[in-house]
């Protein structure tokens, strides 16, 4: 067997392919975990997009909502810790009172920002893309401003949510165990995301709320003629969706790390938007697409943490590291361009609704 491997490794191209497969399989348990972790904020952003756009409101302000929530979560935790002390974290998830309150604050901040987007998009009937852009710019400005201000202040050290430890007896089972470890070996926000994906998927297609949401996003006038309040439905969805993006933002600053940096969302909101499109405006699809984007990042991370040896390693040394930095964005573009024709948006997506009597 060894001699066989040795022989095929001797063939230049084929050898590298085999080396890659071997390396990939060895790294898979670690990589899949990293991929899921990286997918959490992207997926939550995508879910926010699905909820908005299914009701007919385009929201490109995801990035800004996430950034604001990330800042609010971290800042609120620091402030509350300063007032009432850090408290003892629970053994599972590392929950503390400041941490939980901070999460709530982040969600509220996200929903308030969404409310602004809803007002601009639904009531003012402004261009929804520009409304979203405003939210992004405002979020960058406001969080950057406060972050710079706070650099001069000494704040208490904050903690973050910790991941659930899956017993190694389970996590060592090939495939199934890795899968369980990847999906549930996470902090509370990560696990919540997995649950939300499933629940949202069922609700969207089986519940009254889901049916009405889809009706309003496809043909608002038809929905209104059967007595559905289009405006209220859209408001409710957009505001509620803010909580999802906020979870994604909070994940960055109080679960994955314990701190805030200016612009720390790094385009995840926009990648989430792409994941929503690629996932055809369904929660499960969005999750799958988010995983795809995250996987490309996970591969590059894995390579930089434990670089492969042999010819594969030599080959990868010649690939600039920046290529891997750019990879998720490249993949987003390629997938978007390749899939878009077959992925059809809700018919009334982005079109403000005006009641006839108002004219």
């Amino acid at each position: 067997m060894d001699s066989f491997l040795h022989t095929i490794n001797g063939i230049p191209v084929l050898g590298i392919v085999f080396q890659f497969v071997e390396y990939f399989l060895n790294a898979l348990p670690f990589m899949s975990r990293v991929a899921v972790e990286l997918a959490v904020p992207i997926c939550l952003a995508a879910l926010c997009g699905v909820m908005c756009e299914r009701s007919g409101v385009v929201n490109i302000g995801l990035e800004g909502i996430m950034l604001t929530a990330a800042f609010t979560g971290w800042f609120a935790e620091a402030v509350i810790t300063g007032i009432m002390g850090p408290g003892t974290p629970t053994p599972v998830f590392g929950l503390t009172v400041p941490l939980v309150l901070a999460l709530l604050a982040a969600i509220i901040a996200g929903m308030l920002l969404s409310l602004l987007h809803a007002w601009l998009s639904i009531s003012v009937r402004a261009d929804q893309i520009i409304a979203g852009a405003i939210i992004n710019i405002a979020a960058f400005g406001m969080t950057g401003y406060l972050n710079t201000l706070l650099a001069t202040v000494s704040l208490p050290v904050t903690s973050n949510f910790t991941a659930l430890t899956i017993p190694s007896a389970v996590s060592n089972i090939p495939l199934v165990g890795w899968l369980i470890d990847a999906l549930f070996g996470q902090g509370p926000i990560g696990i919540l995301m997995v649950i939300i994906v499933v629940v949202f998927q069922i609700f969207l297609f089986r519940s009254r709320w889901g049916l009405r949401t889809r009706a309003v996003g496809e043909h608002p006038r038809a929905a209104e003629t059967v007595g559905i309040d289009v405006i209220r439905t859209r408001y409710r969805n957009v505001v509620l969706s803010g909580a999802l993006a906020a979870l994604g933002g909070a994940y960055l600053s109080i679960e994955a790390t314990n701190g805030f940096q200016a612009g720390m969302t790094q385009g995840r909101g926009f990648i989430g938007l792409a994941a929503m499109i690629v996932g055809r405006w369904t929660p499960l699809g969005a999750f799958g697409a988010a995983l795809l984007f995250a996987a490309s990042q996970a591969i590059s991370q894995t390579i930089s943490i434990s670089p492969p040896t042999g010819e594969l390693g030599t080959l990868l040394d010649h690939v600039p590291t920046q290529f891997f930095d750019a990879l998720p964005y490249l993949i987003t573009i390629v997938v978007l361009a390749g899939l878009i024709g077959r992925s059809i948006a809700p018919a009334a997506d982005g079109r403000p609704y005006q009641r006839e009597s108002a004219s």
Partner: protein
Amino acid sequence: MSQAIARLPRPRALLRYLWSLIAVPLVSFFLALLVGAIVIILSSTLVLKNPFDPTLPLTAYQALAQGAFGSFNSVVTTLVITTPLLLAGLGVGIGFRAGLFNIGAQGQFLMGAVGAVAVAANMQSSPPAIAIPAALAGGALAGAAWGFVPGLLKATSGAHEVVTTIMMNYIALASLAWIVKGPLKEMGSNPPTTPDVGAAALPILIGSTGHLGILLAFAAVPIAWFLLFRTTRGFEIRAVGANPDAARYAGVNPRLMIVLTMSIAGMLAGLAGACTILGISHRMNTTFQTKVGFDSITVALLGRSNPIGIMFAALLFGAMRAGAPPMQINAGIPVELVDFIQALILLFLIANAVLRRLLRLRGVAGAEQTGFQTITRSYGRETLT
């Protein structure tokens, strides 16, 4: 005599027309300053636990104005900062006219700078008369290429330019880092830096920093205006933006116009980047960054996608960006306040229906038609066949 009387109301009508054009942007600007003032006071007292100081915003804005207009040098600085904003803003504005929302000015700017420095590095020994145009052209081309790609993707697959241009921005960042550390790295430089632009450096015309690019940017204003409103190509661009189906019916190829417009927008942003590197920094390192991307969007919206309006908006923003560092130094207010104010201006602008009601302004027919009501289109639904 009677003729003179008959003509009298005309200047007044003209004034009213002008007022109807600028009232909303102007009021938006002052409202934004007002909200900014509240933020300054609140953040100072609540976050920094400073004593309540209602004059702090005045101090801040005064430092801002001082930094922008306080001296001959500060005016020159304002003009220098206005230059890339104006060029990129014109690009974004032309995009708006074609119904395209180009958030990619950032990446196009960076690639334009890369293109310019790449050409300049290889033309060290040429006379400036050749090196300068060549380096500018290199920047314009690189920016155009960075705009061409999202344009092509939209025209062929319908991929929304908002998402693709943002992705292109991140790819530009990675590319820039690679180029500075790799192909264009000057031997022995640490941290890695490109060579000096040498002969391609733009000559200084006024003050200590006022380079040739200023002239270039202001010359672009009438050119862009003429292109949009006096040429058939401009008519085609505007027709595609206002109604792509009718444009097709009129014999215009919307796909072609989308690619063309995105390339022009990229070219202008690329020129902005080229002017910045050739006129100011002269060298590029991996931290070369810009806020022109977002600023140019605000500038284009504030200028109502009209080149002349964009010129005034760019001057305003140039002033704010020029005044922001003195504001941080002298009043302790972080420069990011300017970004926030920017968002507020936009907010009041797009809520202009509400604002107009408050101001009791009646829309002058046609004055409302700025073209940016037509940007939101669903992903991939366009019938561009």
